[in-house]
């Protein structure tokens, strides 16, 4: 079993993960480690099993085989809720926002601030708007001109920021999983999202990012894991390798198993 060198005990380890759909082996014998505040990128061709792997982590799929440990303890992640309870959140472009609610409504969804009058819970809308604006500004680095517009009217990057703000605010967020976070964004929003990822890393949050764009990968990631045919083709250190190295592993015809 090849493992990249780690200075401290890893935050997360996934070992020997396998998942098949009928006859398709979507993921097979995959190992992944993630340190605190580390950014790991997963790259690979379409159908390589990237999404399936992270869905195992976020509780969407239950793996056929494999062990997951978090902070040294073995955990079983059987549902999205279980994964969230462990401090693991996934942000997809369109998932999880109620687009007819505003940013504050979304950030606090299910965890609203309330005030009880005669035992009846009333929403503290003004307070929530303030708090949401603060989290968005301080933790996510984004300022909305008008925090009361439905998120439906926000841009892709802004909506993503709202989803991340919610993840940060509501859970003791340890790991944020992002599946192609920049896929639908324009150049400026992409820059903002990359900046945001670095910001989260600085806050000690670990990131797993799936991307098809190696420029983005090298802009934020510490390590990059290349997947091919459901297996790990290579894990490379971003500092000591180049885009060409990664590309070679993505398209290589042979099953190289390279550890950094």
């Amino acid at each position, binding site marked *: 079993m090849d493992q990249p060198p780690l200075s401290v005990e890893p935050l997360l380890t996934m070992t020997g993960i396998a998942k098949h759909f009928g006859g398709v082996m979507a993921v097979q014998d995959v190992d992944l480690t993630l340190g605190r505040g580390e950014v790991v990128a997963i790259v690979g061709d379409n159908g390589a099993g990237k999404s399936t792997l992270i869905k195992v982590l976020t509780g969407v799929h239950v793996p056929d085989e494999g062990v997951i440990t978090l902070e040294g303890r073995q955990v079983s992640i059987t549902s*999205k*809720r279980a994964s*969230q309870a462990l401090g693991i959140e996934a942000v997809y472009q369109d*998932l*999880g*926002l*109620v*687009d*007819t*609610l505003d940013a504050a*409504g979304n950030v606090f*969804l*299910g*965890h*609203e601030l*309330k005030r009880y009058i005669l035992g*009846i*819970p*009333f*929403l503290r*809308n003004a307070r929530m708007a303030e708090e949401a604006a603060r989290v968005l500004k301080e933790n996510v*680095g*984004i*300022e*909305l*001109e*008008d925090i009361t*517009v*439905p998120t*439906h*009217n*926000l*841009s*892709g*990057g*802004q909506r993503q920021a709202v989803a991340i703000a919610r993840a940060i605010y*509501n859970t003791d967020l340890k790991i944020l999983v992002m599946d192609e976070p920049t896929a*639908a*964004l*324009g*150049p*400026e*929003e992409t*820059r*903002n999202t990359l900046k945001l990822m670095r910001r989260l890393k600085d806050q000690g949050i670990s990131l797993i990012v799936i991307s098809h764009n190696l420029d983005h990968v090298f802009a934020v990631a510490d390590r990059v894991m290349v997947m091919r045919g459901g297996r790990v083709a290579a894990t490379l250190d971003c500092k000591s390798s180049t885009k060409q190295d990664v590309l070679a592993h993505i398209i290589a015809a042979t099953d190289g198993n390279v550890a950094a």
Partner: protein
Amino acid sequence: MAIAASASVGRANRRREVPWIERYINILGPLVMILTLCLVMAFADPRFFRVQNIMIILQDASIYMVLAMGMTLVITGRGIDLSIGSVAALAAVVMAMLIKDVGVNVYVAMLIAVLVGLACGFMNGFVITKLRVPDLIATLSMDLVFRGFALVLAAGVVLARFPDPLVWLGRGRVFEVVPVAAIVGITVLVIGFVIYRYTPLGRYAVAIGGNTEAAVLTGIDVTRHKMFQYMLMGGLAGLAGVMLTGRLNAIQATAGMGLTLHTIAAVVVGGTTLFGGRGSMAGSLVGVLLLSMVVNALVLLRLDFFWQQVAAGVIIITSVAFYAALQDPGKGGVSGLVRRLGGGAR
């Protein structure tokens, strides 16, 4: 009009800005129709504006106000309740028989009517959440069930002449002017407004209607909230049945047939979308008033009942088409509409 983007937000993928008008369009739309109607009536029949007539309109609108409150919440939660007319009839028949045949105290009987409505709402909610029958089919079927019970109970009899408190609720006037029923209706809608805006019940109706999956993921108990929405709707339908009985001072099992669609129409005209996730109590109030004013105008103009039906249909289609046009991103929403109409300012 150019929009200044702050430094931290990208311009590239930015969607359109929401001008203030878009937030209130659901109220402004029907208000414009109301003003148009007033303009027409100013020429066609000034009796329309007499205080007495306005009070008649309010009186007529009151029952729909009560029903619209529940319906706004139900539709926002991406549900629909097609059984409310029958619930109102069943609750009213039960109350009437308790008063006339059993001699139950009128206040107690009125309370029981509301409880009957609640029970009907509970059954709707149960069928929808536990038996997983889609809202439309469930309430359409339960409509038959509730109506059937009402018919069995009343057996074709018209029950009439009720104690004063009931009649006062239905057709009484405060200071000889303002209909009691209208005060009840507006109070119910104000409570609805508070529930919608300022309590988790309203917030979660929006969340469930807007993105059920997201609501479930954040731990919102969808079953519980749907149950609540349908039970509130049922209880209010029971109250509507009480008010209807009081107004007519008579009730029969076939009463309230048109209540359901009229209520849904008013709510939809007020900007609550049938796709769920977006609604407005204030809009529903304006929608209810618009429909009642149209019906009243047509009566004043001595147009047939059939024309009232046609008018109601046309208003609903106009409103819904209007909202659909606003939602069309290709046309740039309200700002686009305003631009196309040549008004520069947003």
